[in-house]
């Protein structure tokens, strides 16, 4: 009931999460929630560490966490910071588990960590990672091509094959593999490796693995192009190789996990920590906490919807009427492409370029006027490597 209340109150958040996950870079995220549910069920069924779904131990501390989580969501919503929005969503979900299971919630630490993958990386980290990975993958692919006797010239992310230039674009940076591979490393480690160092090894190989397999993919593209299979490299192969290369990476990961599992003996079996006896919470307490949480969700979501939108906007002149003559500069109007408009989601926009007397002194002046609470969906173009 609480979950239903949470989902209903914050439906726009969940909707946006789904939209965001729909992009090709993030569609692995569809797996996260089913995976979380499965892992919880697995804990329950196998009695791995004494967790039982039906044993409640209501804790008011969860309420504190929920307030904290909602705070983050509001902060993220009003400040347009996606990481805060979804971070808050995750904190709230963790707090809900604590509310219902009390201290036993720590037995669900692993599934809750997996659930954290619904939170997108902050854009600046994303940019940094993409840039670095793209460069490494380009350099490595160029080296592989040279080893295969293909003469190439590499400048940044452009690999010049002579007959054609390959551009290793953001979408092909390997970042698309990085997050799913980290997820895979965690899960494989959880099921196959008992020792902490073994799990760390799996996590450490993720970054090099994603660079190597991605560089291999670029290399194959280049090799096919040079050997007269240009169409193949650009069409079927591009999509197929993305899938195949990920499977190879997964297989390597599994192989490493199984190998290192044999290296170190499993740690001595410690008896699973005794489950804390279900604290006798009266039904009244459970009901009171549930009601408090539902009211909290309902109230905060309602308050958030009351907060401003563009409707509170003071009167203003439309940017279309912006003067074309500014001092000695004469302007002309340009329109931004549909793609940019979709990406920015502005209410109105004006882009002007003013051409002054001297040929080389060209201004461009752009003024955007936007409502920051519109949905901004970044979509990576699907383009050949």
């Amino acid at each position, binding site marked *: 009931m609480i979950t239903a209340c949470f989902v209903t109150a914050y439906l726009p958040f969940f909707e946006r999460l789904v939209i965001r996950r729909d992009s090709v870079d993030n569609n692995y995220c569809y797996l996260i929630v089913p995976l979380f549910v499965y892992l919880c069920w697995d804990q329950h069924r196998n009695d791995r560490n004494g967790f039982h779904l039906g044993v409640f131990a209501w804790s008011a501390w969860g309420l504190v966490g929920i307030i904290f989580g909602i705070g983050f969501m509001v902060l993220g919503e009003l400040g347009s910071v996606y990481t805060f929005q979804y971070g808050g969503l995750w904190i709230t979900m963790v707090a809900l588990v604590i509310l219902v299971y009390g201290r036993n919630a720590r037995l669900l630490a692993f599934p809750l960590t997996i659930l954290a993958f619904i939170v997108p990386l902050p854009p600046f980290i994303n940019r940094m990672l993409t840039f670095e990975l793209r460069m490494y993958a380009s350099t490595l692919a160029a080296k592989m091509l040279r080893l295969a006797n293909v003469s190439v010239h590499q400048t940044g992310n452009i690999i010049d094959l002579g007959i054609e230039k390959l551009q290793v674009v953001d979408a092909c940076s390997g970042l698309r593999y990085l997050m799913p591979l980290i997820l895979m490393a965690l899960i494989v480690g959880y099921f196959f490796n008992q020792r902490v160092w073994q799990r760390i090894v799996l996590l450490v190989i993720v970054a090099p693995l994603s660079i190597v397999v991605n560089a291999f993919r670029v290399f194959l593209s280049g090799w096919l192009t040079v050997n007269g299979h240009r169409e193949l490299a650009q069409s079927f192969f591009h999509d197929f190789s993305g899938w195949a290369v990920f499977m190879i990476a997964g297989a390597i990961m599994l192989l490493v996990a199984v190998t290192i599992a044999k290296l170190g003996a499993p740690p001595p079996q410690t008896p699973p920590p005794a489950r804390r006896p279900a604290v006798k919470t009266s039904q009244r307490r459970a009901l009171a906490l549930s009601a408090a949480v539902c009211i909290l969700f309902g109230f905060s979501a309602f308050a958030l919807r009351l907060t401003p939108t563009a409707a509170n906007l003071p009167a203003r*002149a439309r940017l279309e009427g912006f003067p074309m003559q500014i001092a000695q500069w004469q302007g002309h109007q340009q329109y931004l492409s549909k793609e940019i408009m979709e990406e920015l989601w502005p209410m109105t926009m004006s882009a002007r370029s003013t051409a002054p007397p001297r040929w080389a002194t060209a201004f461009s002046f752009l003024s955007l006027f936007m409502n920051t609470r519109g949905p901004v969906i970044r979509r990576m173009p699907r383009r050949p490597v």
Partner: protein
Amino acid sequence: MGGGFDLLKTEDRLLQTANGQSIKIRILHLKQGSRKILASYFFFERGRVITSPWKNKFYLFWDALTKGRTDGALVRAELLMTPDQAEEEAFAILSDFIEEIWVLLPDYVPT
């Protein structure tokens, strides 16, 4: 950077506008081969001039709560420099232009 331009330097500079106000704008020095662009931007949001993206986020949140508004604008002006143009000369032209549009902005962007 988009379009293959490298970002050489970022700095904040003060401008004296035509109506006597002093505003701080962010200047970006961009270069691609022999082409140089002197770019500038500032967030013009609910009467505030902001250059830091962090402050921008903070005031978005703050003004949403206190003023009930989440609108805002980003103003960018870019100057394609001539190959032999000195930075100071380019900045003087750019700031002239911004000073001219500054007085026009309040009609189009609510303060």
